[in-house]
């Protein structure tokens, strides 16, 4: 009996000790908490984050930087809960700007840094992405655009030219199919990868206003350009342009198809430049080109779809630590930190593209006359998931794409309002 009681009391003591051992934080330095997505390790895709964290710490010994790598969807989930609770917020969090950041700004969770950040040199598109209702909440040192990654070795082998029109693209795809090469890698199982090509098809049919009007509720999401683009997408799926089992391939599988020369084209974001230009990831020669135009369509080759690739926004906690926050934002936009990046398009002037592939993507970005933000970053968060669900179904051969878009329009009407 005594033995059992003694063991039990020991257990209670352990509990008390465990509960009592609270962490103690050093208070000698100014503490700056940053929540990000990627690990600051030696992965080529993380070169910028590593340089940013290490460089900032070295240059600012008076600031105790705590960088938290949360991965994805960890960053999104944790940020959502912290913003909802309005407590234990970091000073800075990695953000893609747009409507999600705007929602946090409307809720009073962000800190207006317009005066401090408005004069930092950078591309207008990147600054616009981190601006909400006229106030700048952060910086976007890297900007991603969608385009066509092309396996140049395969194109050379089959004597193909990079297509500049949709008709040429179809001919190229037919030739590739005839030679047993999958024309496009997509990764439709993850839903969102379908969007990149669809955004461009809608643009090429109806111009920038096709989406802009639908978003502003001046047009419906089942308008003619939207439907025609969806029908073309479905037709390509039926022809096998996306492989025999497009819904069985995740985005990672799409990358593998491109990296191993099993697929010849990949319409996606320029963030893949780091991977596709990395010889430890692929032994194929891959290039980056603008999406082709449609003869008779309204969209132009210089209409480009883009989004923040890496951005940082300040929370309301920045008020108590403004100097450190601004120093971090400025260093994030410095040539020194940005030069470490191995694949993304930098929005800071004076930073050289690190490799041929990024140079090609940067050239497409530089020639862009109009940039439309990635739809799922720009639409209200309540209607982005249904959008991706809808797009994925375009790949089902028997789905009625017009009806799918009408159903989506009804969802938009419910959450945002009817088109006027």
């Amino acid at each position, binding site marked *: *009996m005594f033995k*059992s*009681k003694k063991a*039990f009391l020991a*257990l*209670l003591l*352990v*509990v008390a000790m*465990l*509960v009592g*051992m*609270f*962490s103690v934080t050093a208070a000698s330095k100014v503490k700056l*908490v940053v929540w990000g*997505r*990627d*690990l600051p*390790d*030696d*992965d080529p*895709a*993380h070169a910028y984050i590593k340089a940013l964290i290490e460089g900032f710490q070295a240059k600012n010994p008076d600031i105790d930087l*705590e*960088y*938290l*790598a*949360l*991965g*994805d*969807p*960890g960053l999104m*989930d*944790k940020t959502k*809960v912290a913003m*909802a*609770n309005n*407590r*234990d917020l*970091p000073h800075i969090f990695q953000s893609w700007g747009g409507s999600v950041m705007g929602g946090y700004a409307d809720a009073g969770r962000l800190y207006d840094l317009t005066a401090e950040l408005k004069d930092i040199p950078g591309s207008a598109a990147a600054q616009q992405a981190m601006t909400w209702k006229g106030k700048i909440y952060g910086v976007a040192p890297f900007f991603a655009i969608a385009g066509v990654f092309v396996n140049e070795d395969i194109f050379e082998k089959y004597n193909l030219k990079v297509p500049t029109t949709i008709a040429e693209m179809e001919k190229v795809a037919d030739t590739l199919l005839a030679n047993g090469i999958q024309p496009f890698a997509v990764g439709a199982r*993850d839903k969102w990868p379908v969007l990149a090509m669809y955004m461009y098809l809608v643009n090429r049919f109806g111009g920038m206003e096709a989406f802009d009007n639908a978003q502003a509720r001046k047009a419906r999401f089942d308008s003619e350009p939207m439907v025609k683009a969806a029908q073309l997408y479905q037709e390509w799926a039926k022809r096998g342009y996306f492989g025999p089992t497009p819904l069985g391939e*995740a*985005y*990672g599988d799409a*990358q*593998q198809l491109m*990296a*191993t020369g099993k697929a010849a084209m990949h319409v996606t974001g320029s*963030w*893949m430049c780091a991977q596709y230009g990395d*010889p*430890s*990831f*692929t*032994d194929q020669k891959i290039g980056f080109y603008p999406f082709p135009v449609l003869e008779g369509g309204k969209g132009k080759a210089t209409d480009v779809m883009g989004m923040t690739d890496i951005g940082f926004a300040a929370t309301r906690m920045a008020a108590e630590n403004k100097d450190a926050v601004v120093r971090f934002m400025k260093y994030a936009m410095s040539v020194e930190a940005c030069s470490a990046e191995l694949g993304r398009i930098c929005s800071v002037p004076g930073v050289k593209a690190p490799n041929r592939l990024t140079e090609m993507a940067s050239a497409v970005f530089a020639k862009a006359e109009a940039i439309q933000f990635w739809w799922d970053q720009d639409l209200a968060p309540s209607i982005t998931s249904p959008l991706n669900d809808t797009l994925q179904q375009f790949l089902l051969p028997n789905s009625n794409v017009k009806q799918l878009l009408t159903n989506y329009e009804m969802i938009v009407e419910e959450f945002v309002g009817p088109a006027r």
Partner: protein
Amino acid sequence: MRNQPTISVPLGRAYPVRSKLTEIVVTAILILLALAVILPLVLPFLFVFKTRLEYNYNPWGWPTEIRWINFIEAWRAIRIGEGLLNTFYVCLGAIACTVPTAAMAGYIFARYRTKVTEVLFYFVLAGYFVPVQMVLIPLYQLCGLLNITDTLPGLFLPMTAFGIPFWTIIYRSFFTGLPNELAEAARIDGAGHANIFFRIMLPLAKPATVLATLLVFMGAWSDYLLSLIMINSAKNYTMQLRIASFMNQYGVDHMPRYAAATIIAAAPTVILYIIGHRWIIQGTLAGALKG
């Protein structure tokens, strides 16, 4: 119609054929289910010894050579040593807080049945049906008020709160199955409530206690969501949070390295299961999971 006489074939002869078919179908289904469990354990071993390029070309094949570098790089990248210590701490805290509390509560609800204890038991039972996701925000606020967010106790105490209802039900069911005569005999010999519990009943509930200890450990070890929300500093990161930092919006940056981290993270629970599976099966068979 010429085959009509086959109707007269005795059922005893037709039955084994159908039974064999059924057996084959059932076996095939069981093999598929077993694969669903086994493959996630085996696949990382196919990935972990490869370079990224080799993985891209041949993800499902055997590695061309055994390379340990991914283990070393994963260990460095996410500081696995620190993660293992934190996670052990959380697991021990969860066990220490959950198991004794649930054992005592289960005993009370099984042996001292009054209207009050019955009502209280249904309150505890209700707690079992509350999913963590539903109460994340109020839970976080409560922990904030108690000033225990971003601490490891702030992680295992909510785990305890979610674990106690289930294990109380299990212990109650177990204690209900024990003969009351044992307690009465001890009472006649002069034993008090505490003596009866600690000397008679708790030792008899050893299968349930071992089972609870092992499963609470495994549950705490595998937790991701609660850890993600409650922990705000890198030094307090548990293993699952560290592994998740390999993930990005576009998948996994470095699959072989990710596989190395998952193998290291899974090792303690797999080893624990190998050591403790005898007790887990015993505990289950002894009635711990009845009712």
